């Protein structure tokens, strides 16, 4: 990541209790979710979270290639997190790097626990996350999008997965750190969970006392719960909209 020529001591992260972008400590950035944005994929979802723009697609269940990867009694789940070259400040060489390998792994492990893989032996469920623009928090935006894309693809699941990060900046616990807070903050903790609070992703780097950790968890829990409602609404609205298009029967699409 390109270093911005800013000096930590110059930034005051809070002004009158509000953060650099006007948010309170426990607010996440504006979240927009669009379901079913791609024609080829079996399920898809586009998410904007603050300046993050990510698109997730699901293909599957489908035949596994190479065959030797298949499992006799369940579907395997694959996840590929990838960043577009133009998504970051300094143009990134295309292709996976060590970070994207790690994020692919933890994203898969965030989603797989709720997928009923036993319904589809000898197949694969492929999840692809493409980051089109990065603005701190791409992995949680990606997981939120992937969860909706999985539902859109008709994959049977115990529940959705919702994700957000908590952080610490200027000794204060905050929800959904933005870029400056992430770069110059004291801790960053992305989390994903089911609506009933079971954790499927937990990472942390930085420094937190156990007290601060509890605070961060509580804040993240509420954040994930709120994000879940937005994910749920986007899926429900999508089909209610179709109802609203009736009864203009003449507008049949001929494929």
């Amino acid at each position, binding site marked *: 990541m390109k270093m911005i020529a800013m000096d930590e001591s110059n930034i005051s992260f809070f002004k009158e209790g509000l953060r650099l972008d006007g948010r309170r400590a426990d607010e996440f950035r504006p979240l927009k979710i669009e379901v079913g944005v*791609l*024609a*080829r*994929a079996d399920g*898809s979802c586009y998410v904007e979270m603050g*300046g993050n*723009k990510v*698109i*997730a*697609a699901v*293909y599957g269940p*489908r*035949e596994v*290639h190479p065959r030797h990867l298949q499992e006799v009694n369940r579907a395997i789940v694959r996840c*590929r997190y*990838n960043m*577009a*070259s*133009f*998504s*970051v*400040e*300094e*143009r990134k060489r*295309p*292709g996976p790097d060590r970070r994207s390998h790690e994020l692919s792994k933890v994203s898969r492990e965030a989603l797989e626990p709720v997928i009923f893989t036993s319904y589809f032996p000898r197949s694969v469920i*492929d999840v*692809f996350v*493409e980051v*089109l*623009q*990065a*603005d701190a928090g791409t992995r949680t935006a990606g997981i939120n999008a992937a969860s909706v894309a999985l539902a859109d693809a008709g994959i049977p699941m115990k529940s959705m997965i919702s994700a957000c990060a908590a952080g610490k900046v200027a000794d204060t616990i905050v929800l959904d750190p933005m870029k400056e807070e992430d770069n110059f903050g004291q801790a960053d903790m992305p989390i994903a969970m089911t609506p009933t609070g079971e954790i499927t992703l937990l990472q942390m780097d930085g420094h937190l006392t156990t007290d601060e950790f509890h605070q961060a968890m509580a804040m993240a829990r509420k954040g994930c719960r709120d994000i879940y409602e937005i994910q749920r609404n986007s899926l429900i609205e999508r089909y209610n909209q179709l109802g609203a298009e009736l009864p203009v029967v003449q507008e049949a699409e*001929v*494929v």
Partner: protein
Amino acid sequence: MTNVISELKKDYLYNLFLKGERADGRTFDQYRDFSVERNLISKAEGSALVKLGSSQVLVGVKMQPGEPFPDTPNKGVIITNAELVPLASPAFEPGPPNETGIELARLVDRGVRESKAIDLEALCITPGKQVWIIFIDVHILDDCGNILDASSIGAIAALLTTKVPASKFGLGEDYPLPVKDIPLATTAIEFGDVIMFDPDSDEESIANTKLTVITKADGSICGMQKSGTGVLKEEQIYRIVDIACEKAKEIREKFLEE
């Protein structure tokens, strides 16, 4: 990993073609509706999202100073890459670009370079030492046919929105990248003696041959590529080139209005 197309479908399409029709009702030289959304990636110096029918392609332009190539010490550098990411089609596999992806990138590049749309000498900062490097990155999002033409529209649209980020590098104030032409690729497929422009994915999968013609704003040709395992007769090529120039003109007009 693509599905076998049924003989029934091939027969159906072929019979339509013989009657001068296409499955979606278009004429042979008709392009699907397209739209261009510009500047949607604020982190990039320029960007454009092109929707051509259901195909979707996102092109981002990034610029940074760098060293010129030793044999062209006074010229800026253009590097074009295309990522055919697996989310865009069941036929795309993860990994470095294969021959199709590389061909697409090189054709988009050919259009920009051979039309001299970008004055490379104007991108020189310090001769022999520092020049502007332009990265044109094509990111395919949804392949529903003819992503090459969509990428070509996207590339020039993104370049036209590009601001040279001079201030970021202490090289003065930002300014719009000077773009002197609007190169566009127009692609036709040949199938059993029938020629069709802007193929959708079904039409692409049954075609033997493709011919892409890249033209400049003045209608002259700055690039061509025949691809596929079929053959083209000379008169077919002349026909395609004529129509391609027409189509490019129409697309350029619509594009400038958008």
